[in-house]
């Protein structure tokens, strides 16, 4: 092992020992709680986005033909629709099928039977890209034989907007709490520098370089951030497990197996890395500000 590696190993050991003493772990816990808020929020939003994706990824547009339109007209329209590249799926619902489906809805069978004739038109259900939904619906309404177009754009737009607000809010929260993390580390390192003042002075007198003196503080900031990130992930996992008991029961009543899911491995890794980097940054700011002031007299 060369001198450089030995010095880093020694600095790491020193930092670990300092982390184990107050206020090292307490600061890590504060960081953990702060980081758990955006991380937990992200996990929730990500779970909900999974649900929302199934609803909105392929928005459907229903085209109703005029009741008196012939099957030949419907076939012609079908050809036009299948040739349209903006549509990813075209499904023809004949009026007989629509009536049959309606009569299968509980309580409506008698009503349908009493009608005597089929009041429903032929229809196409087409699926399309979400962003072009409005203009597409307008285009489709102008096709010959189409009497009425119904697109679920409002619902899709609202959900997308809510998701955007949620993400923006989480982003702002993460930025604020990230700044908080830097401040917490800044202060821990400042306190550490004050308690180590004598050692720093003596080290400088016997020939310690600035890098040697800074190194344990950088490691401390990094380790404290990483420990905080790990605590945050543990908090998120525990909260999701608690929430899932209730969410599971609620989802089951809707016949769904929906569960809130934990952050993906990549997102969990990114949370840890971000906490570590911010801890390092807090240490860097604190060391740059406070260490120069300590010079042997």
């Amino acid at each position, binding site marked *: 092992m060369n*001198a450089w590696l030995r*010095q880093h190993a*020694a600095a790491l050991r020193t930092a670990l020992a300092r982390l184990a003493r107050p206020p090292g772990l307490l600061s890590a816990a504060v960081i953990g709680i702060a980081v758990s808020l955006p991380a937990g929020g992200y996990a929730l939003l990500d779970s909900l986005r999974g649900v929302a994706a199934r609803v909105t990824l392929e928005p459907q547009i229903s085209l109703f033909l005029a009741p008196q339109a012939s099957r030949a007209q419907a076939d012609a329209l079908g050809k036009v629709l299948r040739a349209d590249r903006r549509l990813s799926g075209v499904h023809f619902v004949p009026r007989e099928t629509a009536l049959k489906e309606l009569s299968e809805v509980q309580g409506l069978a008698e009503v349908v039977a009493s009608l005597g004739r089929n009041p429903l038109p032929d229809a196409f259900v087409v699926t399309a890209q979400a962003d072009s939904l409005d203009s597409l619906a307008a285009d489709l309404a102008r096709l010959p034989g189409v009497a009425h177009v119904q697109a679920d754009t409002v619902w899709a737009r609202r959900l997308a907007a809510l998701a955007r607000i949620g993400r923006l809010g989480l982003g702002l929260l993460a930025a604020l709490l990230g700044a908080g993390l830097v401040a917490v580390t800044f202060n821990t390192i400042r306190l550490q520098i004050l308690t180590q003042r004598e*050692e720093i002075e003596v080290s400088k007198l*016997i020939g310690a*370089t600035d890098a040697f003196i800074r190194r344990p503080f950088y490691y401390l900031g990094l380790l404290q951030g990483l420990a905080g990130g790990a605590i945050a992930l543990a908090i998120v996992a525990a909260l999701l497990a608690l929430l899932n008991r209730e969410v599971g029961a609620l989802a089951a009543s809707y016949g769904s197996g929906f569960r809130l899911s934990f952050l993906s491995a990549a997102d969990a890794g990114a949370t840890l890395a971000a906490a570590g980097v911010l801890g390092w940054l807090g240490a860097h700011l604190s060391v740059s500000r406070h260490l120069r002031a300590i010079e042997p007299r």
Partner: protein
Amino acid sequence: MTCAPSPRASSRRRWLVSFSAVAKRYPGGQEALRDVSFSLEAGELAFLTGRSGAGKSTLLKLIPAIEHPSAGTVVVNGQNVGALRRAAIPYLRRNIGLVFQDQKLLYDRNVYDNVMLPLALSGQAAAEAARRVRAALDKVGLLAREKANPIELSGGEQQRVAIARAVVNRPALLVADEPTANLDAESAARVLDIFVAFNQVGVTVLIASHDQALVERYGKRVLHLVDGRLG
């Protein structure tokens, strides 16, 4: 690093420390040193005497660049100390063993770890570092106390730990500021004997002391400071 005088040292003089026309004025106008010039030969032992406030500590602090001269030049081991870049100062200090009146030991670790400190700075291999620490403690007669906390030791013993820390890096130069000031006569004599022993194996030594009588017993060169001037 010079640990023993080279064969040529007797024929051609080699200055390890050289002050020329050095003045030191502190912010606020207090003049601590005025026109100080002297040189220390490699392998020499000299005492620096004078009443408290005469400028002894200031003079010693100029050598490891703890203070910088207001005028004149201080040359140590061929380097103009006043002109050194900040980043170069640690490497200058590693070649100078410093001993202070108040020892400046760290009380959160034992004697062994205190002496280890200078070796930790340079990333010495553990086995070699341990060997050197024990050798240094042996020379000051404290090998048996390596596990003790400095606070458990007497003033004289603490000063000897400080000396062990100063010499563990095998510096060419030892600089001591009033190392005997707080010690009884017996401990003081023992501490000075240790410095003399290091000097006998080739280390250049400069010791500041206000105790003229103690200094004169050694019959070595004496630099006497009066009001910031060498007398």
